[in-house]
């Protein structure tokens, strides 16, 4: 057993933190995409027309049940061949966003289903148009119900960012491997990267709990 090099272990922190910032950027960008696209998915899946709801359900289940890694490869290698080119970070955000939109849509769906039936009936009795029913009655009650689970998916998405090493995004794992290839010591930077991932995820879940307490309740109008 070779000796553990503490200099490499501690010295890897600044570079890894730069990678952490990139991982967080991908998470935030991807999450914004997931929030918007997820709501679209949820509404399509609830459509009364089978011609809309069934294809939406098939697409959602397909995206959910195939690996994020392969979806990222698909975007990373196929988009340029059809003339679309984004930065790798943005490609990563699209991949994460579309993948997690399928999870997020289920969260919205259960939030919407949690709105009491009486609220729908009341909106109908007041003769509100469909758009008003959604924006003024249903969503303001459904979204707070969905908050806690929505916050959990930010953390889940952050935990998936090491996968981005496969499409050359310079996040923490990529940085750890490049430190390894320079120093021939892989164990130290990878262990430090693991610790930083864990600490960040724990801090995020701590914030999520505060956020949930602050915004998680349905407020009386």
């Amino acid at each position: 057993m070779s000796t553990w090099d503490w200099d490499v272990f501690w010295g890897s922190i600044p570079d890894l933190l730069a990678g952490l910032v990139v991982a967080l950027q991908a998470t935030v960008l991807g999450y914004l995409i997931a929030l918007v696209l997820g709501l679209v998915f949820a509404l399509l899946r609830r459509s009364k027309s089978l011609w809309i709801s069934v294809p939406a359900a098939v697409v959602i289940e397909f995206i959910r049940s195939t690996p994020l890694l392969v979806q990222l490869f698909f975007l990373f290698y196929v988009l340029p061949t059809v003339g679309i080119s984004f930065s790798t970070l943005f490609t990563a955000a699209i991949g994460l966003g579309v993948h997690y939109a399928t999870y997020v849509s289920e969260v919205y769906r259960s939030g919407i289903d949690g709105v009491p039936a009486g609220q729908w009936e009341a909106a109908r009795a007041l003769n509100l148009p469909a758009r008003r029913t959604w924006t003024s009655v249903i969503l303001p009650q459904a979204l707070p119900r969905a908050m806690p689970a929505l916050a959990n998916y930010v953390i889940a998405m952050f935990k998936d960012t090491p996968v981005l090493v496969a499409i050359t995004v310079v996040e923490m794992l990529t940085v750890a491997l490049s430190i390894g290839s320079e120093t021939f010591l892989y164990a130290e930077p990878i262990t430090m990267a693991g610790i930083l991932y864990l600490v960040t995820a724990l801090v995020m879940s701590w914030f999520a709990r505060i956020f949930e307490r602050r915004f998680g309740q349905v407020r009386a109008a």
Partner: protein
Amino acid sequence: MSPGLWQYMIEGLVVTLQLTIFGALLGLVFAFAAGLARLSKHKILRAMGFLYTEIFRGMSALIVLFWLIFVIPRFGYQLAPLFAGVLALALNIGAYGAEVVRGAVRAIPQSQLEAATALNFTPWQRTRKVVLPQAIVAMIPAFSNNLIELLKASALVSIVYLSDLTFGAQLVRASTQNTAGVFGGLLVAYGVIALIFTVLMRFLERRAAASLGRTVPPGMIARIFRKEASA
């Protein structure tokens, strides 16, 4: 595509299925061990269960995999690549499964435990004859989700050059240059495997529920057919 290239895919498929099935079995062991430990009366067992679930749910499976492959050898052990893959996936999915086990056991009504005590069951008899038969049925739907997560996570091993289905597809892509076709086909292949696992788990769920005299409401596919039949 030449027969040689199909060979890569078939061999890759076998590795992916091995990873998923062995990972699920080992993950089940971790899930039960940690889930039951967290419900134990002993403080140390509870703490160990808690640490395990928090660490491995907070850590991506890929980091655990890299750790097993690059860090463990420094301490003088070299894991076989396939075993490292199975272990990384099992540690990850086991932490999620532990919460499923814990939730299902805690959902058993208190009155049933009291009834078992009143009948003078030993704690082990109570667990084996009253708690587990009902808890396991309650766990199956969540476990089928975990199984699909495991299947998806198995693709990560291709990053450390384990020759699974995704790795095979990368070789085929490199030699045919048909990027959209190969990765599109690969996505469909994972979708089909996931569908097969889902159908099998759904069957298991029905059988298990029937053994307790319950029925499972029809799923999405059954509902679609029913709607069209009634329309």
